């Protein structure tokens, strides 16, 4: 099968997004159930229409009973922030091979209270994630691993704390006018960023996102079927993956944010687009450096130019590439990879409110994750969605 043949043949027909925030006080399974029900209502579908389930929860078997589903298959996948795009990719594969017609990709966590027990008995959010033996040295959490990338970028290209701050400020400007985000009504300045306390140098507090609770459901079906359902379908134009282990072997793992090149090549190839065709970007952004390095890797600016590019206003509304128009993870909410998926769908569905990009026809989504060991073996996933022309 030629990947180009898939472009535009599958679509997101339903989107469900619960409240997203800190300590919502609700069990994760209820967040998932609400997300499913919102997505079903959005699509005009019933529970019995869902014949495939892809989750990110390890509680899948209890989950589908709680959800009231009777799918032909149900499985979970876990590649951290790449999972959202992986779930769409695998939903398409399931439909294409006749396993299902209508797949619910479902996410929902309640992690922000710091009560999630880890395998090693510790408790805490993503900030205290252990990567194995580096824990001996007090090396824990995604902040430190991403700081390693930021330090290299600063060393190689002269990127500054102010450049990182420009990302935080730009995204907060988007969140400030987006109800339901952590940053709603609270714009920040570069001075605020510079005054925020140092956490893991070079990251200040405002360079980091926060864990949030929330649920998201995305219903994937054929475009043909989606056209008969409720909302305007958002078409999947391309999807690609890469894996950072290759860069671990070559020693490039800290100089590259992820293995973006192959993910981009596959997804853009399927979609038949170049970077210039993208109207709006939703990039995975747990930390400010992630936006800078991905803008470079996706070709919106040259290598090393990401900091000045953002500082110039290029990622704001009216800029060269409006980015993370819902505030992203930094200022919006942290639904792992689903934050970016939701925002791209909002843009394509013309639901982005005050930060709607006029004439947005093609949106880029990225995700990375799957932090399993010392080499930060992050999967990267690229998703291109677009309007039904």
């Amino acid at each position: 099968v030629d990947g180009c043949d898939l472009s535009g043949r599958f679509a997101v027909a339903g989107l469900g997004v619960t409240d997203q925030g800190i300590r919502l006080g609700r069990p994760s399974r209820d967040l998932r159930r609400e997300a499913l029900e919102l997505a079903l209502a959005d699509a005009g579908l019933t529970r019995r229409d869902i014949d495939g389930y892809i989750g990110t929860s390890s509680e899948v078997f209890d989950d589908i009973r709680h959800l009231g589903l009777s799918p032909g298959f149900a499985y979970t996948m876990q590649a951290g922030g790449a999972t959202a795009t992986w779930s769409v990719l695998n939903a398409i594969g399931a439909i294409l091979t006749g396993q299902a017609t209508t797949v619910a990709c479902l996410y929902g966590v309640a992690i922000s209270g710091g009560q999630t027990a880890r395998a090693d008995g510790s408790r805490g959010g993503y900030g205290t994630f252990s990567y194995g033996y580096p824990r001996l040295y007090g090396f824990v959490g995604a902040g430190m691993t991403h700081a390693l990338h930021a330090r290299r970028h600063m060393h190689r290209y002269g990127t500054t704390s102010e450049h990182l701050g420009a990302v935080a400020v730009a995204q907060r400007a988007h969140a400030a006018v987006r109800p339901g985000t952590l940053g709603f009504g609270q714009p920040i300045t570069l001075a605020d960023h510079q005054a925020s306390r140092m956490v893991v140098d070079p990251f200040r507090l405002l360079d980091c996102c926060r864990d949030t609770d929330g649920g998201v459901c995305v219903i994937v079906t054929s475009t043909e079927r989606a056209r008969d359902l409720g909302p305007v379908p958002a078409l999947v134009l391309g999807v690609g993956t890469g894996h950072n282990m290759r860069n671990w072997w070559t020693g490039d793992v800290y100089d590259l944010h992820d293995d973006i090149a192959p993910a981009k090549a596959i997804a853009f190839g399927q979609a038949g687009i170049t970077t210039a065709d993208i109207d709006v970007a939703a990039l995975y952004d747990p930390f400010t450096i992630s936006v800078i390095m991905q803008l470079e890797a996706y070709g919106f600016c040259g290598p090393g130019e990401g900091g000045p590019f953002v500082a110039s206003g290029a990622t704001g509304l009216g800029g060269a590439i409006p980015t993370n128009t819902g505030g992203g993870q930094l200022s919006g909410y942290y639904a792992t990879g689903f934050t970016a998926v939701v925002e791209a769908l909002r843009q394509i569905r013309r639901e982005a409110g005050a930060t709607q990009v006029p004439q947005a026809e093609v949106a880029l989504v990225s995700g990375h994750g799957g932090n399993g060991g010392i080499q930060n073996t992050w999967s990267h996933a690229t998703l291109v969605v677009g309007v039904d022309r």
Partner: protein
Amino acid sequence: VKPRDLAPDELDDPFWAACRQHVFLVHQCTACGRAYWPASTCLDHGSASMEWQPASGRGEVFTYTIVHHAYDRSLADRLPYAVGVVKLDEGPFFHSDIVGCVPSAVQVGMRVHVTFETVDDETTIPHFTPDTTDQP
């Protein structure tokens, strides 16, 4: 906290055992000489030719961060501290803290070498510290 608690992988036991003798090992392919850490499988020659071999215990700081936030209470009295990745002269990366200098003195490219801290009879932990003699 001991290595076996954090990296409960018996494949790396020879490394931690050698640390008790103040010897720093890398996992090396005897067919091509490529060194790896932690225990790995040679990309070109598979697992059969892999052996633990003494290494120089020297390298340079490839990247680092200075930690100002106590992610758990046991780390609070160490703040601030520098942790990062050392590129060993044999090639592999090794995560470590950088000790023996103030954190703000750590730089990318700084030459470092291993020192060993004996925690108890079972546990010796390698740390990296600047080579004051051959800094750029």
